[in-house]
């Protein structure tokens, strides 16, 4: 039976992240880029991760495969990937997890590929890392993977170097590399940013097929709300190193409970906005080296009260499958979506 057919509740968790903290020591002090993040992704499910630029989405993604570069460190928390405690894995065990249990697609296709090797070699390398040796099989699977991401003339591309490709083509190669070992979890960090919409559609379809047919779990990081809308089952919203809201995708779009989420959704450009008239939030996220002690969104929040400045809200489940991190969530009622936001007429 196809795992995707099972109800969401009965599906097993592929990834469980509990209270993850990742920090970077810097001259200015320790930057807690990820500060107590918990979420899970189930088989065949797509979890979207959205949020402010710099809110820690990429670092979260990197932490899952323990790819955070020194001096960055995972300070605490627990990452369980297909039943394995990732933070307890050592050397070879960890390596085997990478790519085969969880694949990764990086944000920046221009630099994510090695300029000295052909695309074909690099894709084969990903297979070789997990024991595929037969040259014919390598060739076949790489061509398959490239074809799957809509690469024109896959056989020819094998001998192409990354610099000879356009950004979109490179991005597809990167995606192919993340998926080539048929991982149970695919972490995609803005996989379609460099693609035009027609290719984006192909890539998204491909990923969707993966989750449906192979039960691959997908952690999708993107800024594109359209992509979220199309792809995700659930969405987690990050702000300043924390998850501030987590809900089923429809709920999130129709009834966001956190003021940040609501502000974010309203910033989506729409035809009726007119040139240069997109509503936006004021202000900027806090300095992560010295985050405020209270709610981190407090200084930008239209609903801020004194308590917000001193008490740090917890992520609470306000409705079934809907968590939010706001002190005033009960008080503000069901949704903040229609409320007037400070500064926006």
């Amino acid at each position, binding site marked *: 039976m196809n795992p995707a057919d099972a109800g969401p509740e009965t599906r097993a968790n592929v990834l469980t992240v509990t209270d993850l903290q990742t920090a970077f020591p810097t001259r200015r002090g320790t930057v807690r880029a990820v500060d107590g993040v918990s979420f899970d992704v189930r088989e065949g499910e797509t979890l979207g991760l*959205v949020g*402010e*630029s*710099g809110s820690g989405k*990429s670092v979260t993604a990197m932490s899952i495969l323990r790819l955070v570069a020194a001096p960055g460190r995972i300070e605490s928390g627990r990452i369980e990937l297909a039943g394995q405690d990732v933070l307890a894995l050592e050397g070879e065990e960890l390596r085997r997890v990478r790519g085969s249990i969880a694949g990764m697609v990086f*944000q*920046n296709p*221009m*630099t994510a590929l090695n300029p000295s090797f052909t695309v074909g070699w690099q894709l084969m390398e990903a297979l070789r890392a997990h024991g595929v040796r037969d040259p014919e099989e390598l060739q076949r699977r790489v061509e398959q993977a490239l074809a799957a991401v*809509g690469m*024109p*003339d896959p056989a020819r591309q094998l*001998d192409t170097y990354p610099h*000879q*490709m*356009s*950004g*979109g*083509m490179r*991005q597809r190669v990167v995606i192919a590399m993340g998926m080539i070992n048929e991982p149970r979890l695919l972490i995609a960090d*803005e996989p379609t*940013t*460099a*693609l*035009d*919409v*027609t*290719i*984006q*559609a*192909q890539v998204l*379809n491909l990923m969707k097929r993966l989750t449906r047919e192979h039960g691959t779990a997908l952690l999708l990081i993107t*800024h*594109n*709300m*359209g*992509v*979220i*809308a*199309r792809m*995700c089952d659930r969405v987690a919203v990050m702000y300043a190193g924390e998850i501030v809201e987590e809900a089923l*995708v*429809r709920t999130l*779009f129709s009834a966001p409970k956190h003021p940040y989420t609501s502000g*974010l*959704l309203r*910033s*989506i*450009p*729409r*035809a009726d906005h007119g*040139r*240069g*008239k*997109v*509503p*936006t*939030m004021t202000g*900027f996220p806090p*300095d992560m080296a010295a985050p405020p002690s209270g709610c981190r969104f407090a200084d930008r929040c239209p609903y801020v009260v004194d308590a917000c400045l001193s008490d740090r809200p917890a992520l609470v489940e306000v409705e079934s499958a809907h968590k939010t991190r706001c002190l005033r969530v009960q008080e503000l009622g069901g949704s903040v979506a229609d409320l007037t936001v400070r500064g926006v007429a």
Partner: protein
Amino acid sequence: MTPDRGATPTPLLQVNDLVKHFPVRGRGPAQMLRAVDGVSFTVNAGETVGVVGESGCGKSTVARLVVGLTKPTSGSVLVEGGDIWARGKEGAERRRRMQMVFQNPTGSMNPRRTVGDAVAEPLQVLRAPGIRAKVEETLSLVGLKPEMADRMPHEMSGGQQQRAAIARAMISNPALVVHDESVASLDISLQAQILNLLVDLQDRLGTAYLFISHDLAAVQAISHRVVVMYLGEVVESATAVEFAARPLHPYSVALRRAALLPDPEIEQSRVEVGLTGDVPSPLNPPSGCRFRTRCPYAEQKCADEKPALRPAQDGHYVACHFAGIATATTALEGAS
């Protein structure tokens, strides 16, 4: 072609039949990669022209040609009627009036110099006074804290780098800024902020933009006119309003159709649409209409005869033998 010639006698930027071929050496004999193959358009002062198109269709190459980072194989780029490759000071002066925000923010910052230095660079060259203050002001404009000036590029997230790059391009009040996917890596709230900012600056300073993006929504949120490219050629050119209402080229329609809406209700029930077929290689583009290999409406004529870019309506140009055969409405019907 110069759609707006009547409005302004000399447009700010005039691109005439621009061609850029790259020789590529692979196995076998050397081949020519036709990255840009006869592109013409104009940008008026204070105007935003959006460029959309397939990835790899030559948008970035056009951008580099426009700002004078790459020399064209043939064709010309004129600023206020003067060639940017004119000899001596003249050409240099013309090139200086244009700035660019690169597609890849990480690569466009010197890893060994602070962000502030990078942003200040265009001013330092002009030896303008009060550079530091201006840098901090510009950084705040794009939503970066002034202290960020002292950071190294690698200490910032992709979005932060992108904003710094925008600040650098804007700081010397250029006449034209080419944005190559300049908001792609920003979250939407920032994107909106930046887009608003760009419009605001344009209103105040009269800066013109060549805005390259995959994001149709963003393009429409900022552009006056839109140019659609496919495989090194312009296939459609229209005002933004017109383009939003009635894209005429089948490829433009496909683009519109593939654009995702921020609405799970619609999107999750959307049948899988999008173009089929492979993107042809610019090394060996198809005969006739280059889009025909993926066009659902292609006929024999499309293979035999190359459609010229011709006016369909006032200010709306399209290169298709059967312009208007596909419409956005049919596309949307298909989507729902």
